[in-house]
């Protein structure tokens, strides 16, 4: 187990800045998942930790020592690649034991360690096979075994499950999780799959355009996204965003009508554009248009996923998705939706940053936590 400290790390490819000054700390034994869309710099960051990419500026420390100029093999890291990267001409046993052979370990010791790893991963019967005689899952296990046999202080995973089918991906995800619980080795896992990220991470890092958007526990990042990008990236169907404008009294207006948390004010200049957002699962259907907290919802189609229903439609001209329990009976039109206030988020349209309202009777510039917004509800006047 070793810690990783990344300090102001940048990476330039020619004139293109792929990583724009990253600061991140990974505690010993922690499982950190770096999540982001393609081209956000997550794999580049992982490769810089591994030593496969040079750093343009900044420092990377492993176990407290700067490793900027240390050879990949001497950093104590083992890497599992996206496409397994097994040696095609070697058997499973030779693949797993190659690092030990290069290190000059005696054959007997090598064989013992390879057998032990193979047993842990259920590969005993395949030790004499070549990679092209294995299934995707078995190849993935060999790649894991090759990383494990070195007893590294850090595991680096570069989208290792992306080439597997859905069923195998879940199985391997669980195996990786249980291996981490057993070995407690510091791990950095790169993925663009939010389910992998949410289920595996102790600490979740969301990246975009070479920068970190948010760091936190999976539930923290999911429940309290710090930017519109993070809010839209996590969750399926993605979060709904309703464009709104802050009026003179600090309340948010959607399409000319006022959407507000009763008694809550945004300390933003008049006419500031914001996005009022909520997750599809937070919305509930309603036909009670007499109330003050019902948004008219014009639904267009329903998707039955077996476990839940997804309704797609629009609110005030903006496309909105609603996720409901499977057994929900959809009432006839006209329909409305209600969203509990503590499930509503707001982001400034210009920069996408999260903005919190304050209670009407408190001094300006005091941010409110989501927990303080509970017991109130979104109202539509």
């Amino acid at each position, binding site marked *: 187990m070793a810690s990783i400290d990344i300090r102001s790390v940048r990476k330039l490819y020619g004139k293109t800045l792929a990583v724009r000054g990253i600061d991140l700390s990974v505690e010993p034994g922690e499982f950190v998942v770096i999540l982001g869309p393609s081209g956000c710099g997550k794999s580049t960051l992982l490769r810089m930790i*591994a030593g*496969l990419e040079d750093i343009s500026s900044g420092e990377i420390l492993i176990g407290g020592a700067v490793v900027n100029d240390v050879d*990949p*093999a*001497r950093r104590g*890291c*083992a*890497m599992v*690649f*996206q*496409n397994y*990267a*097994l*040696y*095609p*001409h070697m058997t499973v046993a030779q693949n797993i034991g*190659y*690092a030990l052979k*290069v*290190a000059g370990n005696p054959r007997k010791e090598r064989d013992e360690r390879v057998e032990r790893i193979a047993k842990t991963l259920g590969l005993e019967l395949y030790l004499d096979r070549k990679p092209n005689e294995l299934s995707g899952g078995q190849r993935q296990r060999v790649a894991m075994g*090759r990383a494990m046999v*070195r007893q590294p202080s850090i595991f680096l995973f570069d989208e290792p499950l992306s080439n597997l089918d859905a069923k195998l991906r879940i199985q391997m995800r669980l195996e990786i999780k249980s291996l981490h619980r057993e070995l407690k080795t510091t791990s950095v896992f790169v993925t663009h799959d939010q389910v992998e990220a949410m289920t595996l991470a102790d600490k979740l890092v969301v990246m975009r355009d070479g920068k970190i958007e948010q760091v936190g526990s999976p539930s923290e990042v999911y429940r309290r996204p710090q930017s519109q990008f993070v809010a839209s990236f996590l969750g399926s169907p993605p979060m709904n965003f309703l464009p709104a404008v802050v009026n003179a009294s600090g309340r948010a207006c959607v399409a000319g009508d006022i959407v507000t948390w009763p008694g809550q004010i945004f300390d933003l200049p008049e006419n500031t554009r914001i996005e009022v957002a909520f997750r599809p699962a937070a919305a509930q259907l309603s036909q009670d248009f007499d109330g003050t907290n019902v948004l008219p919802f014009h639904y267009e189609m329903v998707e039955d996923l077996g476990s839940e229903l997804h309704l797609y439609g629009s609110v005030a001209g903006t496309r909105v998705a609603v996720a409901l329990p499977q057994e929900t009976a959809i009432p006839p039109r006209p329909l409305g939706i209600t969203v509990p206030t503590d499930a509503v988020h707001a982001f400034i349209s210009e920069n996408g940053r999260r903005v919190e309202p304050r209670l009407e009777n408190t001094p300006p510039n005091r941010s409110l936590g989501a927990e303080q917004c509970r017991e109130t509800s979104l109202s539509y006047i």
Partner: protein
Amino acid sequence: MTTKSRPPHVAAHAVMLLLSFIALFPVYWMFQTSFRASNEIFSSALWPNAPTLDNYRAVLATMPILGILQNTFLMAATTTLAQVVTGLLAAWALVRWTFPGGRIAHTLIALSWLVPFQVVMIPNYVLATKMGLLDSIAGLVIPNAAAAFTMLVIYNAMRGFPRAVIEAARMDGAGSLRTLMGVVAPNIRAPLASVSILCFISAWNDYFWPLLLIRRVENSVVQIGLQFFMTQEGNDWGLLMAAATLASLPILLIYLVLQRQVVDSFIKSGVR
């Protein structure tokens, strides 16, 4: 389906048979002429009336043909080994590292392939003379120790090799040379084999450079040895064909023994 595809199928086979005939008939004529007595050397019969080994006996008596074959084999094998090793190392340097001038180096190597032998013949000859390589096997090998074609074939094969596997070897602690010899080279065996065969055949058949460099018959190679039977007084066809048959035998043997591997390697490597 079968009846529909038969006519083009038959035509294709007919063309292939015709091409094979055109390619093989001269070889057959060389072979059967080598068994003809001098009085029926110009006969147009397909097989000699009285086959004889006299031509072979005469060749073995007139010139040290076994020594010449040995020289040729040594020259061709060493040239092949040198070309593959230099090609492997040069291609690895260009594939593995991005360095200033790398692309220019690649272009220059590719361009050097287009320079005809006649252009570099005189400078090479002068250099070989000054280095004391005249009339020696080393003189035949050294100027051909690196070849652009070999390098380019290996370079293309290496470029298709997954970069992640090379990086995995790096993570496993393998140095650059170990990665090349232990990981990359074993996985590009097919192109290496086909380019080696091409190198060997090309070196074996080389005529002009040995003609310039070699002076004594003991240091000669087969292609030069053959011209001893071509004189101003006329060609001794029987001896010439017997010597030519002996010269072709090693290449034919290599092909017959490794036929499957040769065809496989050419198909797999895309070199045709």
